[in-house]
């Protein structure tokens, strides 16, 4: 078991004196095995991103525990933990330092702060990683972030994660800012990484993408996991009312809504 989340909760308080508690994540439990893609599906406000932030140690849970390789994540030194768990975020444009005088190279060199590698080796690892994810290093290195397309930027973010060779990759809506024609590259790349033994938590609001990419699916609604299981079971045999409605409301390519023209 690579990652085990048990009874995890996060309660936000709004207001200053008489704060009203908001249960963003409400006692969720799930596990991630090595070499599988688990997707976390839910509408906006269902607690997906809060969960991912807690797993990344960017946010302290109110209660519950997260175990990484059977150790509590807060007992692992921070940098060691981040060597094993990395994240890709939603907007590749704002994930980079927007100052126009930093080249892509710098973005790719930063992760080496977590590692001890010589300079020669560093170059080699960067080039190999870029080739591995289907980018031409001669084309990419030496350019500025704003010169690249969204799909290329998102792949560079993935490359940055892969440089430290993590065991778990957290992808928080990695394709929502990318066009349909380039989205496939990122999704197929994540699938390939899974086949190479990485575990991925894929967070999305788009149930069709989750359906395409993942092995197991967790459906979140109002901070709770309401449905979970192997993808085909969740999609073709949903148990919870919410999942049923969600699946019914997704527009399909080869089918029209039946209950539409009332």
């Amino acid at each position, binding site marked *: 078991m690579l990652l085990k989340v048990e009874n995890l909760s996060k309660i936000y308080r709004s207001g200053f004196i008489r704060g009203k508690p908001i249960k963003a994540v409400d006692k969720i439990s799930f596990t991630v095995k090595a070499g599988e893609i688990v997707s976390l599906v839910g*509408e*906006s406000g269902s607690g997906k991103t809060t969960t991912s932030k807690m797993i990344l140690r960017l946010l302290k849970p109110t209660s519950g525990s997260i175990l990484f390789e059977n150790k509590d994540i807060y007992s692992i030194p921070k940098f060691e933990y981040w060597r094993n768990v990395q994240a890709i975020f939603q907007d590749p444009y704002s994930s980079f330092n927007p100052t126009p005088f930093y080249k892509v190279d710098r973005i790719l060199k930063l992760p080496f702060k977590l590692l001890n590698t010589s300079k020669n080796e560093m170059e080699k690892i960067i080039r190999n990683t870029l080739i591995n994810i289907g980018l031409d290093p001669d084309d990419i290195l030496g350019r500025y972030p704003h010169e690249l*397309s969204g*799909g*290329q930027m998102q792949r560079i973010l993935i490359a940055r994660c892969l440089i430290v060779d993590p065991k778990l990759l957290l992808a928080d809506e990695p394709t929502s800012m990318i*066009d*349909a*024609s*380039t*989205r*496939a*590259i990122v*999704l*197929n790349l994540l699938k390939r990484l899974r086949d190479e033994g990485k575990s991925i938590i894929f967070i999305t*609001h*788009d*149930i*069709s*993408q989750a*359906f*395409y990419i993942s092995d197991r699916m967790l459906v979140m609604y109002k901070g709770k996991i309401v449905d979970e299981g192997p*993808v*085909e079971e969740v*999609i073709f045999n949903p148990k919870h009312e919410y999942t049923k*409605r*969600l*699946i019914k*409301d*997704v*527009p*399909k*390519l*080869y*089918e*029209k*809504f039946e209950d*539409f*023209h*009332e």
Partner: protein
Amino acid sequence: MKSLILDFEGDKVMDEILIVEGLKGFWRTRFGYIKAVDDVSFNMRRTEVVGIVGESGCGKSTLSRLLTGAVEPPLQYIDGKVLIEGLDLYSLSPRERRKRVNGKLISLVPQSAMNALNPTKKIIDLIVDVVREHQPRCSKEEIFKIAAEKFREVGLQPDVLDLYPFELSGGMRQRAVIAISILLNPKVVITDEPTSALDVSTQKVILNVLWRLKRMGISLIFITHDIATVRQISDRMMVMYAGKVVEIGGTESVIHDPLHPYTKALMSAVISLEKEIREKQIKSIPGAPPDLLNPPLGCRFSPRCPYSTAICKKKSPPLKDINGRSVACWMV
């Protein structure tokens, strides 16, 4: 009975509410013109829903601005005709256009409809401003009556009029903006990505509202990048690439039998909740869309096209009619 139907169909063919011919609109920058809409022609019939599909940067939103005449620098109208009910939009002065066309003949639901409402004003106050622009002597009670009726049509209670925009949810705000766009009974409504920032259940509500507009006799242009959404509502589909129309045709035929290489590639990149999708690998289109400052000489898709030949790189293909569909490709 049969003749009646035939008449109706015949009538439908004749009755073209919107005719666009060779429309060109460029964005002016320091480095030259960005050819965002370059020679776009299409027709639209009454109560028809036309879906415009394309990736970001293909000129969809620029086209929507050109069609409403909302052309402000740096966007420039270069050439072409937009006829709405026979009225040439660009033969009018901007002032006249604003008075006679905007909101009355054609109206736009902008892309950022979520943020299109003034946060410091109650919705009714905004509506009063909109209506008084056209009918200065209209009383507030009268305006309230018109607005309440339109709000009911999109499924909102008239009480909503007395609220501030932040008190509404995303879907309600989107519906409020749609209601405001039909205040003056326009013939054509352009919706620019009306569902993109919403949850799926809310998306469906919005689609239902748009369907109701169609039944009220409004012709709709539905701009989106999401093919699965547009296919639920549109009668015809127009695919754009890099400022040009590459294919126009009935929705079913475009989806099931795409002719243009770009449409084909786009269709094979769509992900939906159907078993076939999981079994087959979705494909991406290699390369990136061209820089519209200096677009390629011939067909704009030719650098990425697997079937491109010598002529594709030299001459831009015209729209050809094939079985009631129009395709801009040398190879079909």
